[in-house]
């Protein structure tokens, strides 16, 4: 009897899980894109750009992700911009997580020893080539462990999109719970799902770190 009971809501749960995965993947892309651009700008950019980027990072790290999401969700329509909640979520989560990502990237770039830059210069590389071929690959390697943690945090953060009416896994579980009262099983399943995906993300980043450390310069920062 219990097995049949479970099959009744397995469908919505899977749909919700897919929504969660999709949101995580999309906002991860936004986050890495924003994070690397801003992080590089913070580390080596000109003064004014650095100031703008620093303001962005402080604003998004200083306020709650849920508050940011709500502000985007309610402010944009008042400015006459009507966007799908999914889009708002991806932008909101991406910008929030991107602020943390930027700090990691900045730190990693600045942690590359001076001599590396001097050696690259001595070899006759231009500033840009030195950055692209010498500094960045080493910075990526250094940034990978914190970025892995950040990606797990981002996965966990996607659970708040239920507040802006997106039916992700958490929201679906909440709804099913209201109708079936099969509380323990539903929420245990959901927790195990998040745990499994988090382990997967950690594994991917560990592999990426190994490859980046092997001296394969062409490792991409995206996962």
């Amino acid at each position, binding site marked *: 009897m219990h097995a049949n009971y479970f099959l009744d809501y397995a469908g919505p749960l899977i749909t919700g899980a897919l929504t969660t995965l999709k949101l995580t993947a999309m906002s991860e892309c936004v986050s890495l894109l924003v994070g690397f651009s801003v992080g590089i700008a913070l580390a080596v950019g000109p003064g004014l750009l650095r100031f703008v980027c620093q303001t962005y990072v402080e604003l998004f790290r200083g306020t709650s992700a849920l508050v940011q999401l709500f502000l985007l969700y309610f402010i944009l329509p008042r400015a006459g911009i009507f966007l799908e909640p999914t889009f708002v979520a991806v932008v909101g989560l991406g910008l929030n997580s991107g602020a943390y990502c930027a700090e990691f990237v900045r730190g990693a770039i600045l942690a590359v020893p001076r001599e590396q830059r001097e050696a690259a210069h001595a070899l006759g590389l231009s500033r840009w080539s030195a950055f692209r071929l010498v500094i960045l690959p080493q910075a990526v390697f250094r940034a990978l462990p914190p970025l892995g943690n950040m990606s797990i945090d981002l996965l966990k953060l996607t659970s708040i999109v239920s507040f802006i009416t997106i039916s992700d896994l958490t929201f679906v579980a909440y709804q099913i*719970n209201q109708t079936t009262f099969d509380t323990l099983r539903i929420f245990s399943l959901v927790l195990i799902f998040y745990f499994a995906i988090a382990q997967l993300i950690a594994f991917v980043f560990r592999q990426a770190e190994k490859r980046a450390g092997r001296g394969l310069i062409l490792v991409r920062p995206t996962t």
Partner: protein
Amino acid sequence: MTYDFAFAWSIMPVLAKAALVTIYATVCGYCLAVTIGLILSLGRIHAPAFVRGFIAFALEFVRSTPILVQVFFLYFVMPRFGIRLPAFETGVLALGLHYGSYLAEVFRDGFQSVKAGQWEAALGLGLRRWQCYRLVILPQIVPPLIPAFGNYLILMFKDTPLLSAISIMELMQTAKIIGSETFRYVEPLSLVAVFFLIMSLVSAALIKQAERYYQRRSFR
């Protein structure tokens, strides 16, 4: 679209009251988190092997699942087992457990950084084990850990809006209710954002001060 400052000003007292709930939840949750973190990190050192393994797994599990789901889990599952807590206590418990699992890791790093000689000297002086912890080990490990503790305090503070999901009348929930009553969301929400920004900037500055203070003291 105009920003109504008069309206923003008029809702200030209500939001200020709700801000106190937010701060109260953070303080309670953090005290609980520090206690849980300390106990679990000691458990990971002194408990029998299978308990250690279990604690390690539990910490990893709690850390890699969303706190919102944990809040729901506690809120809906605990009553099934006869544990009935009010929403606020449930929320604080969730915050404490989630961040306790992070702080356990911080404490563990601290304990591992203590040199064996300190233990040998303390035990050699005839102190009991808990006295060693209280008088010798903890005073050494806590100051260098202050930045990490502070970061988690700020992170926890920023997670309190999630408690609105179980209808605790903290800042976020209050702002949402004002929004739904007046159809003006931008003013209350922006005030909430400003509140969080100020609070985290202030606490970040305080943490830096504390860090500097303890660094100076430890070099004496």
